């Protein structure tokens, strides 16, 4: 199934409050933006609906779009052989979105990483702890306004 068909099916199922118009950028891949409120239900439906059957979550990327944060999901279906890219836009002051670790277990580590490096909070995650950085690290390095600390436990960084 092509992404425009998937988009049409999503619109029909969830309505235009939850599903934004299909985004086709100047270059590269088109994507579908989902509202944070509907996101978890959309993911569950995409996995369970037999015509969709998105059984494989490739990756989750936290993105700092400078005016907002985003969580980007790349899905693939082994049975159907099609793929889709989902975006969720989150406000800078409170970037929170439902965890999909209960839909795809692989989301567990990806969400921890996006939390660690970008600071997106995945609600309902079984254990949202830092994964790559030490537990006592301050800040989220992949934010555009991040300032590298001058020292860490007496080790000079400059």
């Amino acid at each position: 199934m092509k992404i425009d068909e998937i988009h049409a099916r999503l619109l029909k199922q969830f309505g235009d409050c939850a599903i934004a118009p299909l985004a086709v950028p100047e270059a590269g891949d088109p994507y579908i933006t989902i509202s944070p409120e509907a996101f978890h239900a959309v993911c569950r439906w995409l996995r369970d609906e037999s015509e969709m059957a998105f059984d494989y979550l490739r990756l989750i990327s936290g993105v700092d779009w400078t005016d907002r944060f985003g969580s980007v999901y790349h899905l693939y279906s082994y049975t159907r052989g099609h793929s889709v890219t989902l975006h969720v836009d989150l406000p800078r002051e409170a970037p929170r979105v439902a965890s999909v670790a209960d839909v795809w277990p692989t989301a567990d580590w990806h969400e921890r990483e996006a939390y660690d490096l970008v600071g997106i909070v995945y609600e309902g995650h079984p254990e949202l702890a830092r994964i790559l950085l030490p537990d006592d690290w301050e800040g989220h390095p992949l934010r555009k306004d991040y300032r590298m600390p001058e020292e860490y436990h007496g080790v000079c960084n400059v």
Partner: protein
Amino acid sequence: MGCAMSETVSPTPIRQDSLRTEEMLINMGPQHPSTHGVLRLVVRTDGEMVREAWPHLGYLHRCFEKVAESVTYAQVVPYTDRLDYLASMNNAQAFCLGVEKLGRIEVPERASALRVMVAELNRIASHLVAFGSFAMDLGAVTPFLYAFRERELIISILEKISGGRLLYHYPRIGGVARDLTPGLDQEIRDFLKQMRRVWPEYNALLSENQIFVKRTANVGTVTREQAIAWGLTGPCLRGSGVKFDLRKAQPYSGYEKYDFEIPVGEGAKGTVGDCWDRYWVRMVEMMESCRIIEQALDGLPEGPIQSKVAKVLRLPLGEVYVPCENPRGELGFFIVSDGKTQALRIKARGPSFNNLSITHTVCQDVLIADVVAILGSIDIVLGEVDR
């Protein structure tokens, strides 16, 4: 004197009811020889049994993704070499393919064929390290020496092509860095001949070795459903019986033109998806890679090896994700461009990170020695797990 000594050390008889057992938390790593780098596993043990194992990562983290946002696209390529440092050719190819798709940059046919050739050579080299180190984890040192003998031949070929022995910086945006040097064609063919000759020796030495089979068959079984749910890719996915290879499913660099098979785990020694199956998929893949390299050499088109690309590239607005089949599984770069000379975001989706995430699920109620076997069969490179 001697008599007195032996009296003092005479053991107290052990009775079943006098034994006291309790659970213990043990750190395996970060400096543990079988963790293939610096990985820390916190294991909850009861005697020899592991009840749970929690991986702790990040010891090699250098925030590749932050660095990649602060340099130009061409400057990112050598950094990708250092992710999965046993498969530098494959990494750089995956990144270049992403940039080329977003920037609509053509790659000459000869460059694509050369990329396929070096990527497959690198795949064999990587699988040889997996073969050797897996055996060493299980206590057999000899296979490692065999593997490094053949790996040296590959490294010397790749050195003649690229100038590097481990980190090559060979695939470039829009092509490759250099053409074949004279006589290299023959050297590669000689290597393929040698590889095919010794492969049965490897199997006699390890694959069919009874001790090795006992240590790996029916150990660390990952079902097909688990493998998909946890995002396993590459030999770990195929070992669980899923016939999926990105080179066939979403071909890149002209892989659709090559004739090769996708091996899958069949439970030949035990259960589908056990350590032996994952190991065996890699063994068969080495032979399939030989076939691809031979076809690439036979059909190597004439022509340029690099298309015209601006020194400082400015990509159009947009985003792209191009996955490639690396030796360890799916490597893809999610590249977001906001029209500047540096990316807004580059995210590396590496196979080692995802394959490792199943550790906790598999390492429940297994022997401590099995944890080592399971980790070895997953075949991780910490440079890519931690990025």
